[in-house]
């Protein structure tokens, strides 16, 4: 079991309200990702759920029971920290067994669970090393191991992959997804990495300044962003947002179109001068200036297109992929 409900939860540090009243429902077994710009309150929200910070007002329910006043250890949640927070003077085995030892579980059961976790996480050969003798990815796995042996109701991850290099990050991303489908336990995952959010989540929660801007599946957010913030935040490279004359044509205050939904054509309605063209091999991102629509338009094309700095090109947006937003920034249907 692992349903978590937040009801009108707020958090203030002194006079500064970091989380304004916030409601959120997390279902059992879901993989929920919190994304948002730096400083928007993702970690704070996670720490409120963990119980490491007290809520200023509101209620947190775990499995239907009010957990607002319950100390962290008794909430049945396990957390993986950004810095891993391994105990440096204990061996990997002792690190992983620590929560079990605190729970006074009997030794045989402890060993069984530790061996189990080590096998799942490919740590069996490292059990007698200290954390200082492990690589970043291995430390990360130890931290996850320490979380899974407790068999918690939900896992909380705070940017667990941000200290790893790109290749390792891809690997660990898949391992965590794999782990989720094996364990079928609720996971809440904080990141500001788009790709992590899109690939791992069942449900993405987009935050800005402590407010929930939108909750939905990755594709829902991609295809139907609720407002201009989500439209600009989800998707890489960012959606092109335009206001003024072009928006008026669509009877909206702002219109947006994603780079992948603009084609380079000989007779398109828009034209502009090529600035930087980023050739990634599989794709080319062309930054187009002097279009009269926005400062820069980003266009995504296949890798083999040949455009050069300073070329004039014409562009055609796909009409059925235009997003319209009203004066209040909300999506117009």
């Amino acid at each position, binding site marked *: 079991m692992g349903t978590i409900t937040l009801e009108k939860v707020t958090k203030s540090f002194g006079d500064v309200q970091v989380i304004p009243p916030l409601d959120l429902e997390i279902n059992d077994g879901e993989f929920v990702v919190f994304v948002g710009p730096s400083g928007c309150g993702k970690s704070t929200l996670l720490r409120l759920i*963990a*119980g*490491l910070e007290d809520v200023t007002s509101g209620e947190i329910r775990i499995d239907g029971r009010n957990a607002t006043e319950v*100390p*962290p*250890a*008794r909430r049945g*949640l*396990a*957390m993986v*920290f*950004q*810095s891993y*927070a*391994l*105990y*440096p*003077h*204990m061996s990997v085995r002792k690190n992983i067994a*620590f*929560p079990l030892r*605190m*729970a006074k579980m009997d030794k045989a059961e402890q060993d069984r669970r530790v061996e189990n976790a080590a096998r799942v996480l490919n740590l069996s050969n490292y059990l007698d090393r200290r954390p200082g003798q492990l690589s970043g990815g291995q430390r990360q796995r130890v931290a996850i191991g*320490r979380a899974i042996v*407790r068999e918690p109701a939900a896992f909380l991850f705070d940017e667990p992959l941000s200290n790893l290099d790109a290749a390792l990050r891809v690997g660990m991303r898949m391992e965590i997804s794999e782990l989720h489908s094996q364990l079928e336990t609720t996971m809440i995952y904080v990141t500001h990495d788009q790709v992590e959010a899109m690939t791992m989540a069942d449900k993405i929660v987009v935050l800005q300044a402590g407010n929930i801007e939108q909750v939905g599946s990755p594709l829902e957010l991609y295809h139907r962003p609720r407002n201009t913030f989500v439209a600009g935040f989800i998707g890489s490279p960012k959606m092109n947002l335009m206001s003024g004359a072009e928006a008026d044509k669509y009877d909206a205050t702002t219109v947006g179109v994603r780079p992948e939904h603009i084609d380079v054509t000989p007779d398109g309605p828009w034209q502009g001068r090529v600035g930087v063209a980023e050739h990634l091999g599989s794709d080319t991102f062309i930054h187009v200036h002097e279009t009269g629509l926005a400062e820069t338009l980003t266009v995504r094309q296949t890798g083999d297109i040949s455009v050069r700095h300073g070329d004039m090109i014409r562009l055609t947006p796909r009409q059925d992929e235009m997003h319209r937003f009203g004066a209040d920034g909300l999506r117009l249907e």
Partner: protein
Amino acid sequence: MATAHSRAAARIMIAPATVLLLGWMLIPLCMTLYYSFQRYRLLTPDNRGWVGFRNYERFLTNPAFQDALINTLLLVLGVLVITVVLGVLLAILLDQPMFGQGIVRILVIAPFFVMPTVSALVWKNMFMNPVNGLFAYAFEAVGLQPYDFLSQAPLASIIGIVAWQWLPFATLILLTAIQSLNSEQMEAAEMDGAGPIQRFIYITLPHLGRAITVVILIQTIFLLSIFAEILVTTNGGPGTASTNLTYLVYAESLLSFDVGEGSAGGVVAIILANIVAIFLMRMIGKNLDA
């Protein structure tokens, strides 16, 4: 900085300081060794000559020697235990956010700035004096007989005074160590179900291991040679109840005017200090490895 040229330059640069330091330490050491094998009493200064190990024999068979040895070790051990235990507790206390933290920290550190002679005199006359001392007043206020600390429990009193002086040092070093503890580690332990006492035992104490080692090593060096506090409070007495090795050497060489036996005592003290150092490094030195 590791070319042959830069290494040679570095050696030349530090040579004067090294020579000066060597002279500073080696000459007195050699003189002490020399006198320890000589008959040299200040009352009969002309009657000098080589006496072999006779000075050592006399110093080691002196009934005061065994007392002094035990007192020295008790003094070191007692002060270490008090300063480390109280130091850890104080450091944890001072690490908590509280009102007037800066001032409290300065107050805690203050005793370290008081000279040993002065603080021992203050303790002797203002606190422990059986007639005028604050403790005497306190005892009388609750209807008890005033206790003459320095004559009833001289060694314990001196341990108390010295511990009071060294507590700030221990606290300071342990405080900086506590401040370097990663707070996420504490939070992780909290989520893992460790209560405050378990967090202290499993997280804080191991983290403090290296700092405690440093405190023990440095303090031991200084505590082996405590002298001023004994001189101004008890003069090593009553009898030899508060005489340590340093004080015994002083008593032999300057009170009995026997430079030879005093020098032999000095050499014995050096050997003892080295034995203690070897034991310490064996026991806790591994904490210093990263």
